[in-house]
């Protein structure tokens, strides 16, 4: 029979195949070795069968092979078992730590609760701040090209002041588009306007803009219906928002109607075709609008915009990717100057996503803006977490004396330092987990209140996984850091001295604890003083005499039929109950917008370039506003020449350099007239800026606002009267009443919000600090029980004892206050200097804060000290 190598190998393999210790790979290796040798022998001249036999012989018997392979196999198994053993040991140690940790928590429920409560409140507050910051930072980032979009702005120099504005000349857009290849798109945008939109029998007033054709392609306001490229390309087109479409066509307009092509009448005189419906503009957008109409119409009706001398448009640009902005800014800076003679202005591009946070310009330099608020609150968040952590550390180390026995025994029975540290860290972690859960629950519960205060709309959905992970991370790190010191401290106790009873706490720990309390109260003082300053400033703003009476004053837009029948309207309204006075003006005197620097008068220095605010008004304006005349008179219908005359404010008189400006000539805008009266300075713009020189003139044509002063206490009647007369004279237009003092409050809204938040956080800080102080005080008095007993026996009175016990703590609080005072002073100063008109800082404020801090500390501590002082000395002396 011929020798079959394959068969022979197969036969040889069989016993190996059934052996568990030899894997198929091992067998493959062995077989390969066999074949290699057979080949080598055959090559050397041996016959195949002989070679096979020799190879098998050299390989070794199956029995020896089995023994050797088994040895290796068992070795591997042993190693695996060792690993599993170690793992199970570690996990049971962890379970043990947790069991003891829980037991400790239950035993010391009071301390544990205070600790966890303090930590969770601090964490909850910082979570709120994080949510707020994340919200603020996300403005305008929803645009797909947000990092390529810029707003064109100018620093304009007038006199010795520089004003930064987004109002720029329209020809700038043409120049940017044609001469600068880095600019991919230019979008013209009018300032926000409002218009009356009518469809069928529904009329609504909505806000919107005129916009250039590239609007929907450059910005990301997605269209639900309509084509982004074509939406604004035809004249007489209009794009409306989802919200407006729902108002006109019903909530389910998308399913029922194709609104494209429908007609909307604007301001009761122009018909426009709907060419697009866009999604409601998201909250986090600097641009807000409910309709868009093509820019061409605006340009046709306002040819004055084509001049380089006039500003009045917004321009946005989209740059090609990779264009260096700095370099472009340098090249466009003098675009305006090159094209006209009068003004000196520097053009620059501002990134779209920086507008919301960085919009505060003073004298041509960027000072910050909302970002300052964010920084302040970020600090507050860190402060709060710090205070809570310090609490944690303090309480944990304070309790150490009570755990001394436990630690002593554990060490004596063989626990290593590492294991003790791990034990205490586990306890800290456990508390951190509990505090975190509690904090999240607090956040969810208080979120609606928070939204109301800040005016935001943070939803549960915003608590996304990233936030949760970050929040949990914060909690964990806080616990780790705050827990590590006590862990190390506790683990280093000397067991022998503990068990012998001679253990005394290292004086260093007490010092550290005191230091921590001082730090805590210093931070709290800072927050208290800060809050007080903000509160006082708000009071000041709200109550400051503005120079005009903003209470009981309302306004309505002066439009439609009212403009023609103003005189009749005013006459009739004045006869109605609740109405004191009626007038009109072009602008809100508190806001201002028209300006001129062309004014001249006798004796004016030709080099002077002063900017004046101009208010166009009708008769009785000064009276309706209740501005105070300090010289001369106001406009009167008795004098025909008054149509060219002026009433000025005190600042204007100063600018003119005239002590008695009444009778002086004043000329601008091709109108030469006399100054007939001077009013006391009234605040215009807002309280952040100084009062500017203002001129009031009669201009019956430019009066967009109707002012109505109501009788004090008769506002409801006044409004009813207004509604009646308005409805009679102007039925086509819905009545829209705005209150002057509400508008004022709106302007200062962010400070008010800040005030409320500061109040809340200061309270929280005090609360946490007090919690800590309370716990520490109870611990300290417990430690001194024997001492108190002895003192009582020796005749000390209760009051003596209370003073003695609380003296220590009040001293710490005072030190904290003293340390914080200078820092607080600087911080408050810096804050108040943001306002041109602000409260003054007086020393008594700090004294008050000190007394407050002291009172709080004493109150917190008193419960414990009083209880200790009243205790039965017999029991105290027996105390073990």
């Amino acid at each position: 029979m011929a020798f079959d190598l394959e068969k022979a190998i197969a036969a040889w393999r069989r016993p190996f195949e059934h052996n568990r210790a030899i894997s198929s790979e091992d067998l493959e290796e062995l077989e390969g070795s066999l074949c290699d040798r057979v080949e080598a022998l055959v090559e050397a001249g041996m016959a195949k069968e002989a070679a096979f036999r020799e190879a098998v012989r050299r390989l070794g018997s199956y029995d020896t092979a089995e023994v050797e392979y088994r040895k290796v196999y068992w070795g591997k198994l042993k190693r695996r078992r060792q690993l599993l053993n170690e793992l199970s040991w570690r996990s049971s140690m962890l379970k043990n730590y947790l069991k003891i940790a829980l037991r400790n928590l239950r035993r010391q429920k009071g301390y544990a609760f205070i600790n966890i409560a303090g930590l969770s409140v601090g964490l909850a507050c910082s979570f709120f701040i994080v949510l707020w910051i994340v919200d603020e930072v996300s403005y305008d980032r929803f645009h797909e090209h947000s990092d390529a979009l810029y707003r064109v702005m100018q620093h304009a120099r007038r006199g010795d002041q520089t004003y930064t504005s987004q109002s720029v000349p329209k020809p700038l857009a043409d120049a940017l588009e044609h001469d600068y290849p880095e600019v991919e798109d230019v979008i013209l945008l009018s300032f926000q306007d409002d218009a009356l939109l009518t469809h069928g029998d529904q009329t609504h007033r909505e806000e919107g803009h005129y916009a250039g054709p590239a609007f929907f392609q450059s910005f990301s306001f997605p269209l639900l219906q309509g084509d982004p490229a074509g939406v604004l390309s035809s004249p007489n087109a209009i794009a409306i928002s989802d919200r407006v479409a729902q108002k006109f066509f019903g909530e389910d307009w998308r399913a029922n109607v194709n609104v494209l092509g429908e007609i909307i009448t604007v301001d009761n005189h122009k018909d426009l075709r709907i060419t697009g419906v866009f999604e409601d503009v998201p909250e986090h957008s600097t641009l807000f609008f409910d309709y868009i109409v093509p820019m061409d119409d605006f340009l046709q009706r306002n040819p004055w915009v084509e001049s380089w001398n006039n500003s009045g448009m917004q321009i946005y640009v989209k740059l090609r990717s990779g264009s260096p902005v700095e370099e472009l800014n340098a090249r466009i800076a003098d675009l305006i100057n090159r094209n006209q003679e009068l003004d000196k202005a520097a053009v620059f591009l501002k990134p779209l996503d920086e507008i919301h946070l960085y919009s505060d310009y003073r004298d041509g330099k960027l000072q910050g803006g909302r970002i300052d608020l964010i920084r302040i609150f970020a600090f507050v968040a860190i402060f709060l977490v710090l205070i809570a952590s310090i609490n944690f550390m303090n309480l944990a180390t304070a309790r150490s004396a009570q755990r001394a026995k436990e630690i002593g025994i554990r060490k004596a029975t063989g626990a290593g330092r590492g294991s003790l540290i791990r034990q205490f860290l586990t306890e800290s972690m456990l508390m951190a987990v509990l505090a975190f859960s509690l904090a999240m629950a607090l956040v969810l519960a208080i979120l609606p209140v928070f939204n109301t205060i800040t005016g935001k709309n943070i939803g549960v959905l915003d608590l996304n996984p990233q936030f949760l992970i970050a929040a949990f991370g914060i909690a964990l790190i806080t616990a780790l850091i705050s827990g590590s010191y006590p862990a190390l401290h506790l683990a280093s106790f000397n067991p022998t001295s503990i068990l012998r009873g001679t253990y005394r706490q290292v004086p260093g720990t007490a010092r550290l604890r005191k230091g921590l309390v001082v730090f805590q109260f210093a931070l709290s003082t800072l927050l208290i003083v800060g809050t007080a300053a903000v509160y006082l400033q708000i009071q000041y703003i709200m109550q400051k005499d503005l120079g005009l009476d903003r209470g009981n004053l309302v306004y309505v837009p002066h439009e439609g039929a009212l403009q023609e029948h103003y005189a009749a309207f005013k006459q009739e309204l004045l006869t109605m109950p609740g109405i004191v006075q009626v007038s009109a003006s072009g602008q809100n005197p508190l806001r201002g917008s028209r300006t001129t620097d062309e004014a001249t008068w006798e004796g004016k220095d030709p080099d002077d370039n002063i900017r004046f605010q101009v208010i166009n008004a009708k008769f009785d304006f000064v009276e309706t506003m209740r501005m105070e005349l300090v010289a001369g008179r106001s406009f009167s219908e008795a004098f025909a020449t008054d149509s060219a005359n002026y009433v000025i404010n005190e600042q204007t008189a100063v600018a003119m350099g005239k002590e008695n400006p009444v009778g002086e000539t004043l000329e601008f805008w091709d109108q030469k007239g006399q100054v007939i009266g001077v009013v006391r300075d009234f605040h215009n713009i807002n309280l952040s800026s100084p009062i500017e020189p203002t001129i009031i003139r009669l201009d019956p044509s430019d009066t967009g606002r109707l002012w109505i002063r109501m009788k004090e206490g008769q506002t409801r009647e006044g409004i009813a009267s207004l509604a009646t007369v308005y409805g009679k004279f102007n039925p086509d237009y819905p009545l829209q009443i705005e209150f002057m003092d509400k508008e004022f409050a709106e302007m200062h809204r962010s400070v008010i919000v800040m005030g409320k938040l500061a109040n809340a956080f200061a309270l929280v800080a005090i609360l946490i600090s007090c919690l800590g102080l309370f716990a520490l005080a109870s611990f300290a008095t417990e430690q001194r029980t024997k001492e108190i007993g002895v003192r009582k026996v020796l005749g000390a009175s209760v009051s003596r004892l209370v003073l003695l016990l609380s003296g220590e703590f009040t001293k710490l609080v005072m030190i904290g206050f003293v340390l914080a005072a200078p820092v607080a002073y600087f911080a408050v100063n810096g804050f108040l200097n943001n306002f041109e008109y602000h409260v003054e800082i007086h020393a008594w404020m700090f004294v008050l804060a000190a007394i407050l801090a002291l009172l709080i500390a004493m109150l917190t501590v008193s419960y414990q000290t009083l209880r200790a002082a009243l205790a039965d000395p017999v029991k105290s002396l027996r105390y073990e």
Partner: protein
Amino acid sequence: MLSRELAGASAKPIILSILASGESYGYAILQRIEDLSHGKLSWDDSTLYPVLHRLENEGLLSSSWRVADTGRRRKYYRLTAKGHEALETEKRQWLRVDAVLAQLWGLQPRLA
């Protein structure tokens, strides 16, 4: 033939040393040992491979399967960094023993 103890003790340094000069597979290692000892030492395949596996479990060797041109798979072994360290230790120990024996037997000790 070597005594069992000696054979067992010498396996580790020999294998580590062979692999120190480059990776190799089982059969080649066996051949090398035969060549070096002029046939005096010849190991069974079935004793070599378990040793290789044990050294790999201890982390001194690492292995990878390669396909040869013939199409057959071969398992190649190479020294790890730990393996190099272990080799140095073995070398030191053997040479120490050798020095003592050489003195006792009046031979020249191998230069360490």
